[in-house]
């Protein structure tokens, strides 16, 4: 089955996003192929280096986000139906959570492992191997293999970061983070093995600890983002950097309509696309006609491809959470 790349559920994608989605699917498959090779190669030379072990486990866990992404994209394509009236977009949120937990688990495990190695003053032994009849210090081989695994994740990460913004896809964003963790782990393990080579036994575990702390931080950040999105926090940009501008755009557009006195929208991130509930207070004596309401809806949908599922609610006063007056001293009942 080939994933469709022209739509997310009921949302038709603009040309630009279709291209981005095609590219994202290709690059995730490329990532999986690369990881399969890297896991095999690193596994063969891992030996007793903490940092190498860290890199190896990291590579295995980094398989989770690409698979989560590919699966989520397929699911998100399904149309809404009576059982799933909001569609399947939330599969992205679930995949984001999976990716975040993968990062978090790996970071926590590695941090414990490398710090306990430091505390117990474990001196990692690295001996020799025979390669094509030549005896060679395994450390050289480790550093060589790790160096080979650096360039591609840097490239993958940069491309995914751009596509994540284009597609508003937080799984891709988490995966870009994972690729960053990948190449940093590789660089760290080279430092660690070089340290062992120089007789600085602690450098391996120290490098591994710093890497692990950075992975753990990425994990916490992504897990938090996924959980808050599933909690229907206000929609943010793909990197959780700031509130998504679409909410303000909807407010501005609706407020600008001649029959509208005030407007405020609740926007939640379904994954890729938004679900918008826009409250509008009509001007006194100007109750909107059905045509005006439909026009307002179509106008909102035209603002951004991410806005498709929108409900417009005419109301006498805006709810407090979308900018209405404070409800501290009043309740719905005694108004």
């Amino acid at each position, binding site marked *: 089955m080939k994933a469709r790349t022209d739509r997310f559920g009921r949302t038709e994608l603009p040309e630009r996003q279709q291209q981005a989605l095609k590219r994202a699917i290709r690059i995730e498959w490329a990532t999986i192929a690369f990881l399969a090779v890297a896991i095999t190669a690193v596994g063969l030379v891992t030996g007793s280096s903490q940092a190498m072990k860290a890199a190896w486990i990291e590579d295995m866990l980094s398989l989770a986000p690409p698979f989560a992404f590919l699966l989520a994209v397929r699911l998100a394509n399904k149309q809404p139906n009576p059982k799933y009236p909001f569609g399947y977009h939330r599969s992205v949120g679930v995949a984001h959570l999976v990716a975040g937990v993968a990062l978090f688990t790996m970071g926590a495990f590695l941090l414990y492992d490398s710090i306990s190695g430091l505390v117990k003053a474990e001196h*990692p032994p690295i001996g020799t191997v025979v390669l094509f009849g030549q005896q060679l210090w395994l450390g050289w081989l480790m550093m060589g293999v790790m160096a080979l695994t650096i360039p591609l994740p840097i490239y993958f990460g940069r491309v995914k970061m751009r596509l994540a913004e284009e597609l508003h896809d937080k799984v891709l964003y988490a995966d870009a983070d994972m690729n960053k963790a990948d190449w*940093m782990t590789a660089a760290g393990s080279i430092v660690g093995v070089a340290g062992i080579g120089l007789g600085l036994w602690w450098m391996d575990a120290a490098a591994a600890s*710093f890497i692990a702390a950075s992975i753990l*931080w990425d994990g916490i950040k992504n897990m938090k983002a996924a959980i808050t999105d599933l909690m229907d926090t206000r929609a943010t940009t793909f*990197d959780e950097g*700031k509130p998504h501008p679409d909410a303000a755009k909807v407010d501005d557009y609706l407020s600008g309509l001649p029959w509208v006195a005030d407007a405020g929208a609740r926007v939640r991130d379904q994954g890729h696309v938004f679900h918008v509930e826009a409250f509008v207070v009509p001007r006194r004596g100007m109750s909107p006609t059905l045509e005006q309401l439909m026009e307002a809806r179509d106008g909102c949908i035209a603002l951004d491809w991410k806005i498709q599922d929108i409900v417009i609610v005419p109301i006498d006063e805006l709810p407090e959470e979308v900018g209405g007056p404070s409800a501290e001293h009043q309740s719905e009942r005694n108004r």
Partner: protein
Amino acid sequence: MSDLYDGRATVGLVKTLVRMMAAGVAALALTGCGMQIPADPEGTLDRVEGGVLRVGVTEREPWVDLDSQGEPAGTEAELVTRFAERLDAEIEWTTGSEAALVQALEGDQLDLVIGGFQHDTPWVQHVGVTRTYTEVETAGGAKEQHVMLVPMGENAFLVELETFLHEEVGR
């Protein structure tokens, strides 16, 4: 990109890694170009060369045979004797149980322990283990992969021993 992505944690990590690399290069420069890679954190190889090789032996024929009078015999004892000659070192033999010898190895009281150990030895958590230097088939048809035990992380010494075994036994 947001400030979350390129956060201070990342910058700090990169700085730390660069600093570590610089420390490594400095260490390399200080020790001069004659530096051996890998090096021993505790300097075992340096101490043994032209000095004393402290070898722990535990009986397991035909690898180590303690029955005869005088020095230990057996194939591994002979290999170690030749290894000591190569390093211009005197051998100081210590006999004991595996547990006692491994403890001494961990406590820096021995440099090498032999006694027909195999590559899947449970002591791998406590000591360094050489690459399999020879493989024999037992009467039952199972493969035995033989190794020697060295102090944990004394990599110059480990590499020297493995190189010797590679040249002598050819594996």
